[in-house]
């Protein structure tokens, strides 16, 4: 059968229809309304202002179901990431799961194996914690000779949320962990059934079975309806779409803890089970790609966090590391949470090399890139937490510093 090609007139009509629906969908694409005319009617679920454009940046990947998308840290304010801008890392796409049908099984070395519905889990006592979540591979590009051009692409696989859920220790007590159990094998319900081995000690210390994020059910891309939260540990261990916890006497050496998420050292040995995310900070303003358009006083600001506890202090240099001054920290400083730092800074058209370094409550000091590479070489991929230097030029433009 011969295909009928649309006429030019039909194409124009289609174009007009598409354009019209786009306009309707985007609420007049950022055109201010007459303030004395009645505004929009009330709606059931809010959208942000059409003038706001901050979006995640997605790194190119071989398949659309895999890869990472980065939080726009340069556009962030405060210390909680909007759920819609939380960084993502996916291995086989985002499943759509009906919470009425979802089940979590607890099995293996337990006295009472359990199969729980979401309603069962929601009956249990819950806790709420504000926590940082960082991908183990955040800033991986910084190991190389070309460091990230802006803060989103170089440090954006980190986000902060309020998580609500059930302490895993409580559920394990319900199941009755047997004395020789020492590991928990966590599996997710994405297509690839992402799996990680978690030491039982961590599960009993502070792991959460989370269903809430920032006051509502977590987003599908964050593991809806249920995910594991391991405070302070690399993102990959926080298994999303959680559907199985198996108590065992050994780690299962999953692909994502041997082939991936292990840290190769210069001697050819790889560190395994490198869970903790160490103290880290980065200046988000002024940062790469931004421009200081006028001379005068600015608020220099950024984010600091540590997987090992509270941020104790953040020091800022404006002279490439010769001198450091303490930035003000936003209180309350919560353990294992994004901590906003701020410092008034006058830009008078003089070039400056600016950077921040975080110190956590264990007195761990965020290292320089050089110190990290001296200890670990450049092939470990994961757990980069070096100091990030931005170059503010005399004309007010800000760039990264080539290594």
């Amino acid at each position, binding site marked *: 059968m011969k295909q009928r090609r649309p006429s030019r007139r039909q194409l124009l009509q289609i174009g007009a229809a598409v354009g019209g629906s786009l306009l309707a969908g985007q609420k007049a694409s950022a055109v201010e309304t007459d303030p004395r005319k009645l505004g929009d009617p009330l709606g059931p679920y809010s959208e942000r202002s059409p003038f706001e454009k901050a979006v995640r940046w997605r790194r190119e990947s071989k*398949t659309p179901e895999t890869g990472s998308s980065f939080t726009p840290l340069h556009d962030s304010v405060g210390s909680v990431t909007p759920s819609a801008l939380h960084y993502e890392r996916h*291995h*086989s796409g985002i499943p759509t799961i009906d919470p009425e049908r979802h*089940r979590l*099984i*607890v*099995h*293996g070395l337990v006295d*009472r*194996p*359990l*199969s729980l*519905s979401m309603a*069962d*889990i929601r*009956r*249990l006592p819950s806790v709420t914690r504000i926590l940082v979540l960082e991908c183990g591979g955040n800033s991986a590009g910084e190991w190389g000779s070309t460091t990230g051009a802006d803060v989103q692409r170089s440090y954006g696989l980190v986000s902060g949320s309020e998580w609500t859920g059930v302490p895993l*220790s409580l559920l394990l*007590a*319900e*199941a*009755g962990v047997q004395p020789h159990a020492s590991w928990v*094998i966590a*599996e997710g319900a994405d*297509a*690839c*059934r992402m799996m990680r081995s978690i030491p039982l000690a961590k599960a*009993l*210390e502070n792991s959460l079975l989370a269903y809430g994020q920032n006051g509502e059910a977590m987003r599908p891309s964050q593991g809806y309806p249920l995910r594991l939260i391991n405070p302070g540990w690399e993102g990959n261990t926080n298994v999303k779409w959680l*559907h*199985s916890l198996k108590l*065992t006497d*050994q*780690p*299962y*050496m*999953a*692909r994502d803890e*041997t*082939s991936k998420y*292990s840290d*190769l050292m*210069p*001697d*050819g*040995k*790889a*560190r395994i089970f490198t*869970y*903790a995310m*160490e103290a880290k900070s980065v200046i988000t303003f002024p940062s790469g790609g931004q421009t200081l358009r006028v001379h005068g006083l600015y608020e220099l600001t950024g984010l600091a966090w540590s997987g090992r506890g509270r941020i104790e202090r953040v020091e800022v240099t404006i002279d*490439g*590391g010769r001198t450091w001054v303490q930035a003000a920290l936003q209180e309350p400083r919560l353990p294992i949470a994004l901590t906003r730092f701020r410092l008034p800074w006058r830009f008078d058209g003089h070039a400056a090399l600016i950077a921040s*370094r975080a110190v956590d409550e264990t007195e761990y*000091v965020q*290292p320089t890139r*050089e*110190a990290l590479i001296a*200890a670990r070489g*450049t092939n470990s991929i994961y757990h980069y937490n070096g100091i990030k230097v931005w170059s503010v030029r005399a004309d007010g433009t800000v760039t990264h510093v080539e290594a």
Partner: protein
Amino acid sequence: MWKLSAILLAATATLSAQSPRYQVGRPPTPEEIRELGSAIAPDGTGLPAGSGTVAAGREVFAAQCARCHGPTGEGDVGARLVGGQGTLATPRPLKTVGSFWPYATTLWDYINRAMPFDRPGLLQPPEVYAAVAYVLNLNGIIESDRVMDATSLPKVKMPNREGFVADPRPDIPKERRPR
């Protein structure tokens, strides 16, 4: 000392709370355990019945794996699966099943749970054993006449079995005056 006391206290608290208080849920069905929790341990715990030869694996690989991983595992859209032995301590390490993966059971577990990429769960256990046998053979780890099953697979000694070390962090010396 205070740390030790705290740990003991925590352990006591954990053990004393082992009786169920909330009576939630029900025992999982065998189907649920099979479907949701099929992870394979490095000692072979969880491996199902069935077996696969290198020859059978060549056919499975050609039909299901080669379009992404290349006809002989040289890599394309999918990861490279062969080669790289001896490169881990060089400036350009090549991490493959043959050069890097410490356990053959991981290969079975990962193919079973996650492959083929666009149709995970497609392969039956004998096909998974066969694909594993073929990839191990491609890497020169097992001979062409070997059969992989729940007994033989965990006994395969991967070249990089001893290549992993515990996390020594914090590992960076403190420096007060960088640069």
